[in-house]
Each structure stands twice: as C-alpha cells, then as structure tokens.
C-alpha cells in the first residue's frame, strides 16, 4: 500500500488529493516553469534575438538560399557535437575528432584514387571513424588513462598519419556520386547535410533522454562509483560513447570531404574546439552529469546564425571569433550572475 493508493481510495479528484496532509510534491515548480527557466529557453531567446537582428542588419539574410548556405556553417560540427555531448555528460572528452576527420578523409581519398565507388568510400569513412574511436576508448577504459590526455595524443597521431600519407599532396579523384553528401539537396534548398543533421538530432534526443542507455550516461557522469554499484557497466558505457564519437566524426568526414571535393591533411583543422564550444554553449556541464540534445541543436543554430550574419555584414573573422567567445562567456555567466544577484 503506497501513498497514491490511499489517495485513490479516499477520492479520485485532484482537489481532495491536494488537501491530503500526507501529500508531498515531487517537484517544487511545475513542468512549464521548469522549461521556461531552462538553459534551452534562454538560448532560444538569444537565437531568436540574433535571427531578428540579422533580418534587420542585412537585406540578404532572409533569402532561402542564404539560409540554406548558412546551415553548412554548423551541420558537420553539430553532428559531432551530438556524440561529444554524450561523451562530456559521461565525464570524458574527445579532442581528436577533427584529426579523425583528417584520417577518415585520407583513407577515403586513398580508396577513391584506387577506384572504389561511393558505397565503399562511405564504409571506409565510417569504419575509420569507428576504429579511431575504438583506439581512444580502449586506451581510456582498459588502461584507465585520462581521456583529455589520450585524445590530445591521438589528435597528433591521427592527423600525423594523414600528413605521412599525403604530405603536401591532395586526393581529388572522388566519384561523381560522392558529391551528393556535401553538395546535394534533398528538395529545393534543403540540403542532404541538413536533413542528416535533423535526423541525427532526433536519434540522439531519443537515445539520451528516452532510453536506459541515456540514463546510464547521466549517472556515470554524475557519480561513476555510484553508477557502478547500481549495476551499470561503466567502462562499457564509455567505450560505446567513444565508438559513437568516432563514428560521428566519420559521418562528418564524409560530409566535409564531399563538400570540399578533395582531401588535404589540414582538413577540419581546429574543428574540435568549435565542437566543444557548441556543446558547452548547448548547456552541457563541462564537468559531466548534465545537458540535453535540444540544447545542442539550439546552440548549433545560434553559432551558425551568428557567424553567417556577421559574415554577411563583412565583419572580419577575427571580430566574429571575439563575438563567439563573448557569447559563450556571456550565456554561461549570465545565469550565475542573476543567481548571485538574488542572494
């Protein structure tokens, strides 16, 4: 016999339930209040503000093709950011993602030069990503090394391999069909990359927020020891997350290589920090344990719209990065400042 059972026998209407002296609310605020006060709501507000500001600032912003071109600024990074979010929530990080792109792209370039077709190239891209993820995962979970150290090492290792293979050369001979992933449109202005981004957003939202695995990720990030004693196989969860991050880097490598139509070892240089920026802006705690995929989606749009909007005004890239940095610090500091002010 539990609390709710007695409540039901005493009377089914909510009014009587509320009057019950033994009734203890399981949350202090309603669901609606929580959503309104959430990080995502704040970020969405910032996003809308940037969108409106862009509309007024540049006459070229509100054109379907402009907006379509703008999405390419963030789709590939966001694909990796989804997996990276899960990894960071679990308390680990992967800084080798951009280097995985370089290695996967190089492997695909080599295969394309050898005359393989598009399906094989996609397989090689995904496979290389998985292998790199597995390498990171094994070093972290089996040897117990800190992931930040491991992935700083593999960041040089993976890109170094691709420099050894390519040197100052480039792979160019991609088959015609391969161009679809980065340059193709599903219908009108909606690019393949954007559709993929949307589909992955849904998949990752379900994975993190609606499955047992997602709950395991949160509990591992909050308290790995407690998670272990609750029967969660912590190393296995982390291994899967490293594999997933590697796989998503492979997906991004396919898109980026297809969009550029060529491979050089410097491909995607510095992208890992942009991905981490997106994840942190999306409300994921860098210490692990909390965060959401919708937050990442909004952060992707915010960053993409900000850089594209400023680009339309021909603001120099250096100033754009200052804006991005200021936005990151501002959005993170604001809630804390408000909380401090209330106290």
């Amino acid at each position: 016999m539990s609390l709710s059972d007695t409540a039901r026998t005493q009377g089914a209407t909510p009014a009587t339930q509320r009057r019950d002296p033994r009734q203890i609310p399981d949350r202090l605020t309603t669901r609606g209040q929580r959503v309104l006060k959430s990080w995502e709501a704040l970020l969405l507000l910032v996003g809308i503000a940037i969108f409106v500001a862009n509309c007024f600032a540049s006459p070229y912003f509100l054109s379907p093709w402009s907006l379509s071109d703008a999405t390419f600024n963030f789709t590939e990074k966001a694909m990796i950011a989804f997996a990276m979010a899960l990894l960071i929530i679990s308390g680990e990080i992967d800084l080798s993602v951009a280097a995985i792109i370089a290695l996967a792209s190089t492997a695909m370039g080599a295969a394309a030069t050898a005359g393989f077709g598009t399906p094989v190239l996609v397989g090689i891209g995904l496979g290389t990503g998985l292998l790199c993820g597995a390498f990171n995962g094994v070093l972290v979970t089996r040897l117990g090394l800190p992931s930040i150290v491991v992935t700083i090492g593999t960041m040089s290792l993976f890109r170094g391999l691709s420099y050894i293979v390519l040197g100052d050369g480039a792979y160019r001979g991609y088959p015609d069909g391969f161009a679809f992933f980065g340059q193709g449109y599903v219908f009108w202005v909606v690019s393949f990359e954007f559709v993929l981004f949307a589909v992955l957003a849904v998949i990752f939202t379900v994975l993190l927020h609606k499955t047992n695995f997602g709950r395991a990720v949160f509990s591992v990030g909050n308290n790995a020891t407690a998670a272990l004693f609750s029967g969660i196989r912590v190393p296995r969860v982390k291994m899967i997350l490293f594999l997933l991050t590697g796989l998503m880097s492979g997906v991004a490598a396919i898109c980026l290589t297809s969009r550029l139509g060529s491979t050089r070892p410097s491909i995607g240089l510095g992208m890992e920090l942009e991905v981490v920026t997106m994840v942190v802006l999306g409300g994921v705690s860098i210490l692990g344990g909390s965060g959401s995929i919708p937050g990442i989606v909004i952060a992707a749009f915010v960053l993409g719209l900000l850089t594209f909007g400023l680009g339309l005004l021909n603001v120099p890239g250096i100033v754009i990065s200052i804006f991005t940095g200021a936005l990151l610090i501002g959005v993170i500091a604001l809630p804390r400042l408000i909380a401090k002010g209330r106290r």
Partner: protein
Amino acid sequence: MKLSKLLITAATAIGLTASAAAADEMRIALVVKALGIGFFEAAAKGAEEAASELGDVKIIYTGPTETTAEGQIEVINALIAQNVDAIAVSANDTDALVPTLKKAMQRGITVISWDSGVAPEGRSVHLNPSSNPLIGNMIIKLAADNMPDGGDVAVLSATTTSTNQNIWIDEMKKVMPDYPGINLVTTVYGDDLADKSYREATGLLQTYPDLKAIIAPTSVGIVAAAQAVADAGKIGQVNVTGLGLPSEMAGAVESGASESFAIWNPIDLGYSAAMIAYHLAKGDAEATAGAEIPMGRMGALTLDDNLEGAMADPFVYDKSNIEEFKSIF
C-alpha cells in the same frame, strides 16, 4: 505570428531599398587567406586605389581568422548570399574552394584568383604576382650573391600544403645547377606561425653549424629566421633572405641579419586584381587564352592556356631602399 510577419515585411522592405541603392555600384570582394597579415592589408590598399580610380566600385575586404579552406568557404558563402559582382580570392587550398566558387559562378558572380591560385574549374582567371620560375631563381640568387665561396643553405617554408611556397621551392631546385657550390641541405616548415618558424630556424642553426644562408619564401618565416639568427649571435655568419615585407624586415636589414630580400609590390597586386575583376565583371574584357586584360597603371595581363598571367618581376629590397619602402607596406 503577426509579429514575425511584420518583421519579415520590414526586413524585405529594407532589403529592397538597400539593393536599389546599391544597384549602380559594382561590389568586388577581395578575399584573403587570413586577416591581419601585412601583405594582404597592403593588397587591400591597392584594391581601394583601383576602386577610387574606377569610381563606381566598392571593395569588400574580407577573409577568415585562420588560414583554413573551411574558413574561406564560410566567407565566400556569405559573399554569394550578398550577391556581390566579383570575388577575387587568394586561396588557402587549390581544390577545396572549387565547389563553392563554382556555385558562385553559377549564380553569375565573376571569380578570379590572385596570389595563391584556385584550380582552373573554380575561377575564370588567375593573376600571378610574378612568374614562378623568376621567383624561384630570385630567392636562390639573393642567397648566392652573398656567398662568393659557396656553402650550405636551408629553406624555411610556410606549411607543407602551401601552394605558392611549394612551387617556388621546386623552381628554385630546378635552377640550383646554375649556382655551383651552393648546397641545399634541408627544407623545414614553420606553418606561417611566428613562434614555430622561430623554433625551426633555431633548429636549423643548431643542426647545421656551417649554414651560410636561410631562404624563407614567406613573410612570416623570414622575420622569425632573422630574429633567430640575431638571437644566436650569428649575424654576418648566416644571411637570411627570401620573400618578406619591407616594414617587417627593416630592422633585420639594418642589423645585417638580412643582406637583401625580394617581394613584388602587394599594393600593385591588389590594385591589379581589382582592375581585372572589374573589367571581367563589366564584360569589357574576356577570359580567353591569349587575351589581354587591362590593369590600369600596371599595363595589361596576358593570359596563357591555363588562363593565368604574371603581373611583374619581383623587386629587391636592401639597405639602399628599405628606408623608403618600410613605411609603405
């Protein structure tokens, strides 16, 4: 819902008035490898000079923060969205910009490359600052002129993927037999970063104690190498030469770390690029093999079969003229 409709209408109205106002003005975008590099700032000055000479031209000087192809693509996408009349780009990557620039050309934008080229399918014309064989010859000649007894030289380049530097070094190697006694020991890469170039140059001085000259065909590398030579106390022993900017190299020339170096005039280069873009976009010049495209005070650019042309010979700077040029660029 009503609010958003209102905003859209307002924005469209602004858009219409803005595009109407800009209709009679030609907008030429000068896209550089990265902002904040003295060479490109000087090129922008030249482009502005061309614009004021032509009258109805607006120059949009832009580029990414870091020298990456991805960054340039973002910048070019923004320019396509603005529907500029012409894009003149100094590319970070010969191939990676091609799909984006093709898209620009499909939407009616004139695309030329200058300084660092784009593959022929991604542009109509490429403007070389000088001819590559001449530059390759010039950098080794500058080193050899100060080495009457011959000896070891080393190259400090930009990145392994830098189109320009690789071609020049290849051309230099081709003419090496013309300079007997000169021995190229190695090529190292400073990635066009001041600190990395400095470390690589210091490494060269330590690894090759008999080194007589460092050839740095990059404006970042040559300054770092001159600094490394000065810091190692090897002025007079090791001569730094190559391609650099007079304003950044004045100190090195005065101290003797560098006897002489060469560069084309970036002001002339930006000026010529803007002129070529203008005439092609206007339609009064055509991009065909053998054609001559007017470049204002710089004469005319003659196109070869790859639709490329050379602007002028590189110019040598030494103690005699550095004072005059260091304030220019």
